[in-house]
């Protein structure tokens, strides 16, 4: 409450004399100004400057390096350099059993580890033809939507810092902390969750988890309202983001963008609705679509997606069925430790799974899921052994980042920071 009182006393822009928020209609700022007109300012010497930004720069969100050619303060050319965090996960995956790959997926997009676990498990299950249990399906939906909220919270906090608003960062990271506590309760880890297994989950949710999650879904919208109040109609925020880095729908499709980046440009494609997995078609939620494809619309899309995720979480809590989490297949699911140590048959299954791994039939499978960053694809090719021939991650933020030069060229250097922030990259995934 105190926050609101202070805000009114200082007469925040966007609030009129009576204290009611004034609405800034979308499209108020001039949008889509042509880059060329900025680059060719007459009377200035045409000597261009080369600026190296990163890899150790807080505004590059990790170890991204941008070599920028500047004419005065105008960006003429951006040449991104990636790969500083390359870890060879795809190569490593070719030497691991399917379940051993799951810890690697945590470390790709480390801002939404649970969703990556789910994406890989779904691909492996499609390859092996496994049908997961109803309880597991709903638990995975909960995992995915929790990940979406924390990822968008990190994005919102860091982006607002990049653009100069510090306060939302503190509020959003507090919310992320609450989800992290729930993740820790469930998996024992805050960041590297490794929560799924092929055919089920690492563990069922513990006592008190549902109560904690329900409390979160009730109180989380309040924080969203607070952030909404300080950002959405804030004239500084609007001025820094509207009309910056716009992409049309056709350009977004041509650049293979996905996720919020694609939808902010007005393409209503959401994997959860259009190619449903985990029964997402049975949940009641809206696909958020922008109009202008600029930084402001990307902000609005991600912001509203948090509310929609919260709706999905509420529905998932209500419908969570009882029953087993793992499929009933001793060749696939490890027996409990106590049985493996006391029961001959269980010990044999345990030994076979650990030493030989689970064999997948010859074939290949691609599963794309709607990750917070965009469409995360897992493409597995099997030659009938227990290790994949090829494990390919379709990295959404890698592909979204490739459109950065197209978006940033012709804008000011300070806009480059805003545009780069709006892509929502995570270098663990870009470089893999």
């Amino acid at each position: 409450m105190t926050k609101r009182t202070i805000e009114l006393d200082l007469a925040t822009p966007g609030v009129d004399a009576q204290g009611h928020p004034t609405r800034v209609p979308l499209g108020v700022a001039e949008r889509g100004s042509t880059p060329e007109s900025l680059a060719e300012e007459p009377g200035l010497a045409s000597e261009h400057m080369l600026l190296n930004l990163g890899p150790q720069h807080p505004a590059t969100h990790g170890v991204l390096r941008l070599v920028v050619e500047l004419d005065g303060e105008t960006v003429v050319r951006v040449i991104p350099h990636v790969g500083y965090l390359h870890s060879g996960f795809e190569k490593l995956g070719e030497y691991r059993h399917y379940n051993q790959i799951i810890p690697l997926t945590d470390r790709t997009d480390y801002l939404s580890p649970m969703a990556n676990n789910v994406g890989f498990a779904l691909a492996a299950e499609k390859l092996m033809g496994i049908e997961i249990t109803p309880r597991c399906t709903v638990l995975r939906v909960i995992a995915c939507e929790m990940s979406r909220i924390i990822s968008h919270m990190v994005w919102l906090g860091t982006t607002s810092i990049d653009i100069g608003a510090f306060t939302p960062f503190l509020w959003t990271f507090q919310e992320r902390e609450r989800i992290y506590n729930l993740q820790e309760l469930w998996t024992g880890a805050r960041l590297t969750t490794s929560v799924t297994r092929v055919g089920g989950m690492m563990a069922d949710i513990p006592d008190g988890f549902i109560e904690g999650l329900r409390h979160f879904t009730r109180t989380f919208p309040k924080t969203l309202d607070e952030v909404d109040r300080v950002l959405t109609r804030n004239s500084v925020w609007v001025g820094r983001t509207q009309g910056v880095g716009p992409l049309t729908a056709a350009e977004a499709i041509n650049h293979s963008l996905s996720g919020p980046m694609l939808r902010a440009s007005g393409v209503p494609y959401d994997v959860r609705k259009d190619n449903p997995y985990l029964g997402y078609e049975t949940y009641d939620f809206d696909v958020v679509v922008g109009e202008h494809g600029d930084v402001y619309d990307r902000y609005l899309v991600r912001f509203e997606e948090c509310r929609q995720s919260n709706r999905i979480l509420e529905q998932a809590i209500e419908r969570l069925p009882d029953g087993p989490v793992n499929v009933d297949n001793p060749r696939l699911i490890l027996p409990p430790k106590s049985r493996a140590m006391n029961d001959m048959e269980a010990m044999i299954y345990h030994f076979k799974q650990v030493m030989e791994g689970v064999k997948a039939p010859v074939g290949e499978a691609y599963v794309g899921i709607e990750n917070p960053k965009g469409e995360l694809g897992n493409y597995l090719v099997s030659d009938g052994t227990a290790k994949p021939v090829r494990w390919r991650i379709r990295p959404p933020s890698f592909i979204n980042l490739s459109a950065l030069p197209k978006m940033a060229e012709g804008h000011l250097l300070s806009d480059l920071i805003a545009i780069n922030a709006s892509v929502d990259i995570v270098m663990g995934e870009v470089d893999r």
Partner: protein
Amino acid sequence: MNPSVDALRATFGSAIGRALESCGDTIVYVRRDALLQVLAWLRDTPDQRYDYLVDITAVEYRDRERPLEVVYSVRSLERRVDLRVKVELDAEADLVVDSVVPLWRGADWLERETFDMFGITFRGHPDLRRILMWETYAEGYPLRKDFPLRGRFSRAEQVRQALAANPEAHYSMEELSIAEAYGELSPEMKERLRRGERGKLAGSE
């Protein structure tokens, strides 16, 4: 199976190889020289409209007899249909395939990554450089099956090379050509650039 396969066969005839279904996904093999026409046809024909490029990657099998495959996943956003198009390349012969950047700008980095990891050259790509590995990386192509998991060079050799690399190796030739940046280079660096030795190791020769 995806009906686009029959439409492809009717249009391109022998340029379309076998088609199969795996885990519900349709895969169609296309002759290398017809790839660009096939993908352009898939993108632009009104009742196909595969307007979205999902992914480009490559697969090398453990079985040395099998050729390398370049895999294109395309999608029709309106019809919600996916199709996987593959091109087979003989690892003993030249690993060259046409670039699809003229069709989709999004193919730019995907093709660079495939080049970086498999050594497949995309003919007509505007800027085919390594992307995840650095430009002077000399150990080969990491995702090929003959590449050992721990790399070809020892850790000591990797460290030696990293320390010995010239500073200008961190910039591409194109970047260094920006006027002011060139002016600030030391005479020794300019001399190395003039001799075309960008990125060479100090101790080698």
